[in-house]
């Protein structure tokens, strides 16, 4: 679905005469291989290059070096830009700044309108995608009257209406309250499960990546860790090095293990920890 080879992106700052003042390497030889239908989470501190990577997948930025194939299309070629954008949709951080129309259903129709879909088909798609994110009953509302989580779901519907194979969510929850955050993450998982859309979730909230198929950790433009959530969270020390907040349950489990209790690495959920502790207690009872 998405294949990146040795992708490099440099932000070059020039002074008034056009001389290079400084070069910031936002992506440093990144390799990435995403299979269709996967749910991938990309974690990283601010400035780790994760948003830059996302913008490449949508052909909003062009790489300085390396190649990136989306759905088999080379994003650096001019004629591929629109097809790439259609097959890899993108949801941004600020819900207000990505809703174009003043009525929910018209905003969802914006993408299909741009790609030249016939009118009847647009209506069908708008209804389907609003239903898929659970916002059908707000179709005639003004986006200004919706909550942050609802706006973000409308934005997701707007992308879904373009029928992409892959959706990149670039910190979709950063500006939301906990309720809105849950709504958005649940919607992303439902889309992934129900219609097999590949999801790339970029975030710095650890709790949101627990259910992902695969987690990538980025730091200073490089992919520094990769694996299942369990594998990643079993390395608490390393995660802290990259200035990431490990979920509290995982830290507690880690501390308990270090103090000598027999608790497995990479505990992700509260129930798991409860179970592990109960088991330890039972074993000690028997002794």
């Amino acid at each position: 679905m998405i294949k990146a080879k040795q992708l490099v992106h440099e932000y070059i700052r020039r002074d008034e005469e056009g001389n290079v003042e400084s070069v910031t390497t936002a992506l440093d030889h990144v390799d990435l291989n995403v299979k269709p239908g996967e749910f991938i989470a990309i974690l990283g501190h601010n400035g780790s290059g994760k948003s830059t990577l996302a913008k490449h997948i949508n052909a909003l930025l062009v790489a300085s070096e390396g190649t990136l194939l989306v759905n088999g299309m080379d994003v650096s070629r001019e004629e591929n830009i629109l097809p790439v954008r259609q097959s890899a949709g993108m949801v941004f951080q600020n819900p207000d700044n990505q809703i174009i129309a003043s009525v929910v259903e018209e905003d969802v129709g914006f993408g299909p309108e741009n790609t030249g879909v016939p009118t009847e088909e647009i209506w069908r798609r708008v209804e389907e995608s609003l239903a898929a994110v659970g916002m059908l009953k707000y179709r005639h509302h003004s986006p200004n009257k919706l909550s942050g989580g609802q706006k973000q779901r409308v934005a997701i519907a707007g992308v879904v209406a373009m029928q992409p194979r892959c959706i990149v969510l670039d910190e979709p929850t950063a500006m939301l309250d906990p309720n809105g955050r849950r709504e958005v993450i649940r919607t992303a998982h439902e889309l992934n499960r129900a219609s097999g859309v590949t999801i790339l979730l970029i975030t710095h909230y650890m709790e949101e990546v627990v259910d992902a198929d695969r987690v990538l950790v980025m730091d200073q433009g490089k992919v520094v860790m990769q694996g299942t959530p369990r594998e990643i969270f079993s390395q608490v020390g390393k995660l802290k090095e990259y200035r990431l907040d490990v979920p509290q349950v995982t830290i507690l489990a880690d501390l308990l293990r270090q103090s000598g209790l027999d608790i497995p690495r990479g505990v992700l959920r509260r129930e798991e920890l409860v179970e592990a502790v109960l088991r330890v207690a039972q074993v000690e009872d028997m002794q």
Partner: protein
Amino acid sequence: MLRDITLGQYYPADSVIHKLDPRVKLFSTMIYIISLFCFRGVAALLIVTAFLAGVIRVSNVPFRYMVKGLRAILVLMLITAVFNLFLTPGEPLFTFGVFRLTAEGIRNAGLMLVRLTYLILGTSIMTLTTTPNQLTDGLEKALMPFSKIGIPVHAIAMMMSIALRFIPILIEETDKIMKAQMARGADFESGNLLRKVKSMIPLLVPLFVSAFRRADDLAMAMEARCYNGGAGRTKMKPLRYGKRDALAYVTVIVYLALILLCRRYLRWPM
């Protein structure tokens, strides 16, 4: 407090006028304005009044909503009336210092008042029965021929609809910045006009900065959704003329013809 402002004054109701194609309404309003300024004679005035009353009736918008618009230009109407009363040359009926009241003046002032009142009432029917979005759509479609001579009609319409979408957001933001500045001791209320204007600077600078940032974000979001200008775009809600639109066109043209006929043959008493 700033939140309560709604743009446009659309009055949702179910009526034939609401359902008309926005292009018909734009065209009719234009014809109506022309007719207001070229009618002559009592017969024509009656036709105009009947036409206006009929449309108001059919539009299902309460009359007091339209009268609201009149209040805004009350001062303008008074000034126009006074100027017409005293500055029209002719036989003086009554002289008071430099002021001369003439029969023509009275007639002109009365006519001007009627014209302005009818103008506001007539045009407010359009804004009351058409959503800003429909209006933009109508303008885009109606002005499309101009794109052939290089006028970016689609871009202008898109800009208008985006502006409409962001007005409430920016108003809310202004409110927020104002409160933030007030919390740090800014004073927007006291002082003379110059001071008040000066105190707006710390409000406007952050507002502009954020507006530019939003514009940047929005442009990227639009590009990400394959926006590529007007070419090859389809419409979710395309404008299509129906039977009632044709009927409306005919009505308006007959109306204009009647006014012009009166102007030629029934000029009495003007």
